């Protein structure tokens, strides 16, 4: 990525690849790890849908099905010390942050599966003691920013944490995840504009899944590639194939490198498609606004399938191995535990079990922690 922000060739990067790709340095083990992480994210999603159907969960589920390439690819390019800000559709990101350091590495700077399941089930083991719902958790220690419901609302905070790190002499970056619809919020503009002025290392990932709830992108903004929004801020805007975990990894690494070198923020648009309704309450209604054919077409490129294909081509996976856990292309109702690697299922089982067994917070906690200093 260019160090001058006005080089139009660098800003319009589609179709061009930089000389060296970050993925060129990945080993076969990395590929296997990435594939397993895709399975993990997928399994978390379908398992939760099943649990909900069984009546074991309250609250809405915002499925990340088919969008796992973005979560996994982006996180794989980060250091433990980097900040992330996931939102409603990024639930797996909370426990997959810094997965590269080892899923059960006690030093890992990410939430445990027990914590995240504790949140989903509304138990005391939730990092926020289940005071707020859905993806509204975080951790200062784990460097995960706690979102509110207000879309794009954490981008300023992401800018702020990097400003503090820079003052402290650290070179961490912050990566925010955002639906393309959320970019219409004023605070998106205010925060990125300031990050551009201050050259702060904030990478804004756009999960462009073509829909904001029931609204298609042509009612949300007027651009071919959303990434071009970056041109208006004088910062780089990259486009990634969100279904290709490696492309996401490469583009995010590019953006991160640019940021760490002190050049400031960037936007990475990851093109993807939302498999289901906006939330699980919307699954049956989505056909009201979204034509069947579009859904069929959009779901065709499953990130697990794409990664397997690449790995087979590279010789990292035999066709037989690739056929082994056929979760790809299947919805929550079609899939079984057999479609996933057993270590993935076991990992989540651990979280679910812990959550089911944990107590619900006591009522009086509702009155606590309005202020730190109670006076």
């Amino acid at each position: 990525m260019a160090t001058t922000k006005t080089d139009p060739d660098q800003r319009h990067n589609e179709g061009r690849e930089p000389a060296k790709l970050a993925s060129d340095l990945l080993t076969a083990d990395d590929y296997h790890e990435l594939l397993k992480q895709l399975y993990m994210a997928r399994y978390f999603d379908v398992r939760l849908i099943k649990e909900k159907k069984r009546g074991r969960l309250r609250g809405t589920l915002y499925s990340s099905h088919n969008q796992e390439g973005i979560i996994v690819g982006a996180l794989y390019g980060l250091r433990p010390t980097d900040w992330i800000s996931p939102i409603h559709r990024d639930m797996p990101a909370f426990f997959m942050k810094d997965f590269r350091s080892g899923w059960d590495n006690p030093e890992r700077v990410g939430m445990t599966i027990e914590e995240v399941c504790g949140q989903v089930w509304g138990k005391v083991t939730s990092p926020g003691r289940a005071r707020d719902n859905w993806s509204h958790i975080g951790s200062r220690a784990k460097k995960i920013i706690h979102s509110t419901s207000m879309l794009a609302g954490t981008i300023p905070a992401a800018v702020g944490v990097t400003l503090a790190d820079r003052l402290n002499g650290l070179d961490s970056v912050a990566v925010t995840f955002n639906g393309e619809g959320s970019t219409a919020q004023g605070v998106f503009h205010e925060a990125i504009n300031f990050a551009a002025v201050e050259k702060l290392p904030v990478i804004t990932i756009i999960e462009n899944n073509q829909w904001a709830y029931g609204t298609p992108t042509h009612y949300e903004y007027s651009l071919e590639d959303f990434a071009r929004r970056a041109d208006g801020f004088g910062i780089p805007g990259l486009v990634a194939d969100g279904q290709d975990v490696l492309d996401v990894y490469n583009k995010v690494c590019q953006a991160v490198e640019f940021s760490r070198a002190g050049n400031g923020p960037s936007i990475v648009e990851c093109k993807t498609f939302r498999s289901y309704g906006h939330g699980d309450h919307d699954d049956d209604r989505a056909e009201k606004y979204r034509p069947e054919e579009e859904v069929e077409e959009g779901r065709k490129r499953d990130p697990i399938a794409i990664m397997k294909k690449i790995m087979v081509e590279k010789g990292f996976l035999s066709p037989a191995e690739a056929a082994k856990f056929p979760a790809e292309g299947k919805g929550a109702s079609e899939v079984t535990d057999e479609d996933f690697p057993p270590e993935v299922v076991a990992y989540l089982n651990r979280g679910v079990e812990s959550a089911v067994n944990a107590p619900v917070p006591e009522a009086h906690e509702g009155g606590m922690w309005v202020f730190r200093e109670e006076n």
Partner: protein
Amino acid sequence: MATATETGVKKNFLTGLKEAIAEEMESNPNLICMGEDIGALGGAFGVTDGLIARWGRERVIDMPISEAAIVGVAAGLCLNGKSVMVEMQFIDFISCGFDQIVNMTATYHYRTAGEVNMPMVIRGPAGAYGGGALYHSQMNEAWFANSPGIKIIVPSTPYDAKGMMKAALRNPDPVLVYEIKDLYRRRDLEEVLPEEDYIVPLGKASVRREGDDLTIVTYGQNVYHCLEAAKNLEKEGYHVEVIDLRSLVPLDEATIIESLKKTNRLLVVNEAPMTCGFAGEVLSRMSEKAFEYLDAPPARITRLDTPVPWVKPLELFVLPSVEQITEKALKLIKY
């Protein structure tokens, strides 16, 4: 053709709202609807269902997720002769369009010494008790009650929902409508709605139950908590009057004062945070204006001064309950 009244088809709260908007769209060609996902989806709760099919994007506009622009564009439409219904997907997100409401829209008539009016309705699902947590549970009406130039209504029955929504859509001033989403589909509230056009004028409270031992003033879903408490108390021989304000700005003070002359005791119940909330406003006004009628300290039961937490026990802990109301009522009656 069978009419609803003839056949006695009972309708829910949401249907009341829906019919009100659809009928006003029909009768007022200058009325525009704006909001997020209000077109093909029909809104998150279906209140605008069918409008786009009938009126198209010209009058039913799916907006980007831009609450400030939504309100501001609506202000421009009003300035140029249109009326606008703005849907907030949840009333909680009104905070993102706050400035355009309180400083642009609410003051427009005042600033122009009456030249310009703002026939804008801003409405959206509101209220807690449903596990919506901090950002899908708010009752933030007090912010706007303290911002001159905005009318505020909170209907609690299908009849009022339809009649007040119609009144709001015809009103020349900005009107905020808090729609209690937990009432949207409550079966026990369903009622037959008049077939003919009707409105329920803003600024009139409704006495939902008569009594002479205590006046409970409330609105929204708390009306039902209070009615239940009143039923409990009836069993113990106490007669509680329950006033459903329906309209906060303007406020029907006369109805409350009349009641206090009879009961001499006041309890105000709402689910917003206590400090500077509307319950306190009612309490203040009555302390000022009906002091001589009060034989016991006026009281309020509100949400604690906390956000609305998610999990059930915590949520219920911070919100008014039938038990709390009953207990407090007894204390006041026996004072």
